[in-house]
């Protein structure tokens, strides 16, 4: 049968090209795989959820609490179907798995990128894959945001209102753009069908295509080799082949990962739609976006109020905080491979302590994002009496500059310390070896 298949499908070629792909043996290389498995779990659970979801914001009678004939209890069909999904056997569990996996996918992608950055794996020839990875990160976040609008409870309603407001804040073209993206003035009759289209067709399609390209390039260019590979076989690919050694490891990882997600979902509830209730004019106190967008939220909370009019376009704090600032941050991340001028191809994962400046910039960048996320907790910090309404902005603005700076110099200092220790060690072992030779 092997031969029969081979003659038709050229399995041996596939085998040589793809199935024998060598995987480096190091746990940090599993982060990308976790991201991939998350995507697969998300697609499977998403398909099952889509079977029971009604993508419409038309008002229908709530079958769980119909009200009276002259005053029926009307709620959006999408919200109603979310309630129905929760009432299904394992329906709530399915929603939780989908939600948890989405969070883990973003987290795994972020840590995966940190691994790439700190070990220099973005260097020539892998720049293109860094950029594809950035696109994957952006589209993953967009997919997640459109996903938590779909239940169309009060939380989703407030979220989409802010997202609409942010889109509309772009000078000159903003209101047209927001209306085109969200099917008319907020909240248009077609807003949920529109976002449903984005969430289940457009964005997953983009994610799958980018993932495919990402992995093809990875197979073509090979992983960076861990440092031990340099010692055992210089400039040779070291690792275990996809088939058959890496596959059982991957399967094990998938099962372990799925198990952990199920455990999380069983015990930690996410997004209780019943609690938030249908869309209403009553705002939700201390509403916050998911953790990966908290930094933008924090920036908006501490940015001062202003409005400039330039050639009829209005530039306000919202545009600067929610569009301009993230664009600058994302552009900086895109630019990472261009800051490296090496002409040679990079084979080996670098030890971060050998590149103290890169390491320090990375840690202080993360410290900045963390402080901005903390700024997202401004109201909570004020109500906990940590800060006052008067000083909150000043303190948070100072922290935004001081903490990254301190992190930068602390990192450089620690790296110097590590190096000094290492050099001392080397001198010592050298002294001992020469002493031994003298005998």
């Amino acid at each position, binding site marked *: 049968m092997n031969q029969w298949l081979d003659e038709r499908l050229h399995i041996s070629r596939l085998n040589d090209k793809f199935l024998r792909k060598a995987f480096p043996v190091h746990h940090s290389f599993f982060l990308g795989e976790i991201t991939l498995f998350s995507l697969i779990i998300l697609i499977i659970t998403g398909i099952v959820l889509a079977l029971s979801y009604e993508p419409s914001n038309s008002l229908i009678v709530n079958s769980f609490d119909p009200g009276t004939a002259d005053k029926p209890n009307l709620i959006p069909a999408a919200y109603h179907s979310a309630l129905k999904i929760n009432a299904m056997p394992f329906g709530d569990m399915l929603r939780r798995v989908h939600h948890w996996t989405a969070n883990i996918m973003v987290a795994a992608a972020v840590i995966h990128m940190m691994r790439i950055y700190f070990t220099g794996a973005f260097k020539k020839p892998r720049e293109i894959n860094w950029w594809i990875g950035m696109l994957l990160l952006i589209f993953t976040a967009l997919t997640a945001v459109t996903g938590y609008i779909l239940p169309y409870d009060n939380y989703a309603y407030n979220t989409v209102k802010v997202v609409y*407001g942010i889109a509309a804040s772009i000078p000159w073209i903003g209101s047209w753009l927001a*209306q085109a993206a969200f099917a008319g003035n907020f909240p248009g009759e077609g807003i949920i069908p529109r976002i449903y289209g984005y969430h289940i067709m457009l964005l997953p399609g983009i994610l799958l295509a980018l993932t495919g390209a990402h992995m093809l390039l990875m197979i073509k260019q090979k992983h960076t080799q861990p440092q031990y590979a340099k010692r055992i076989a210089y400039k040779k690919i070291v690792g275990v082949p996809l088939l058959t050694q890496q596959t059982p490891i991957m399967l094990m990882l998938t099962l372990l990962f799925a198990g952990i997600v199920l455990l999380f979902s069983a015990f930690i509830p996410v997004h209780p739609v019943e609690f938030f209730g249908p869309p209403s004019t*009553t705002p939700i106190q201390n509403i916050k976006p998911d953790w990966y967008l908290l930094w933008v939220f924090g920036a908006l909370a501490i940015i001062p109020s202003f409005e400039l009019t330039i050639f009829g376009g209005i530039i306000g704090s919202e545009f600067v905080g929610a569009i301009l600032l993230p664009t600058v941050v994302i552009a900086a991340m895109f630019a990472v491979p261009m800051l490296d001028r090496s002409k040679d191809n990079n084979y080996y994962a670098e030890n971060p302590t050998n590149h103290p400046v890169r390491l320090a910039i990375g840690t202080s960048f993360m410290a900045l994002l963390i402080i901005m996320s903390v700024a997202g907790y401004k109201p909570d910090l004020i*109500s906990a009496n940590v800060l006052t309404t008067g000083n909150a902005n000043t303190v948070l603005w100072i922290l935004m500059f001081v903490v990254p700076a301190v992190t930068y110099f602390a990192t450089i200092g620690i790296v110097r310390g590590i190096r000094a220790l290492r050099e001392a060690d080397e001198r010592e072992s050298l002294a001992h070896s020469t002493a031994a030779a003298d005998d």
Partner: protein
Amino acid sequence: MTRYRKQDPEMTRRRFINAAMGTTATVGIVSLVGVLGTANPVFRLTRDKMPPVEGDVLVHASASKEGEIIKPSELSEQLIRAWPMGKDKEGNNLIRKGDPNNVLAVFRYPKGQIVAPTNLEATIDGEIVAYSDICTHAGCSVSDDDQQEGQMKCPCHSGQYDPKRGCIVVGGPPPRPLAQLPIKMDGDKLVVAGFFLENPYPFTEAEWEARKEAVKAQLA
């Protein structure tokens, strides 16, 4: 290559194909843009989407009491959310909640506490005042401030307003104060006395003027 380019009076095959492909691509893109144009549906100003107009009665907006007419005795320094209720073409009552940006915030303070820049002529006896309840920053509904008595705070990005001073911005990112709505008493009802004094969210000044004209033209 030769020094002399061959002069061919006829179009080469390559040129023809390039031109044909270019034309196809142009026509294709133009028609795609045409199709995408339909992504942005036309806005129709229906009566339930109109901003509060003169003569509208203020009714409760909270889910439990929605549609009940607000009595002055119910008002206090605590924010009460209200919808403007007007008439449809047949003269039946119609709550203008087709546009959620129509939601209002109504307060009542002891005399003398409401000061400039609030337009005192647009309040009822300098005691009852109404504002748009939509934050001018990202369009969230603004609440009472749980940390500072007598102020308003937007839960979305911590925008803060002072309702006793014309809802000026006292903290956070909002660019403009909340728009004040002129109101008057009509028996025991609170009635809208005219359009918002400034442009409410999401309108710019020019858009707001245009909207006012459109509403006037439609109701005339």
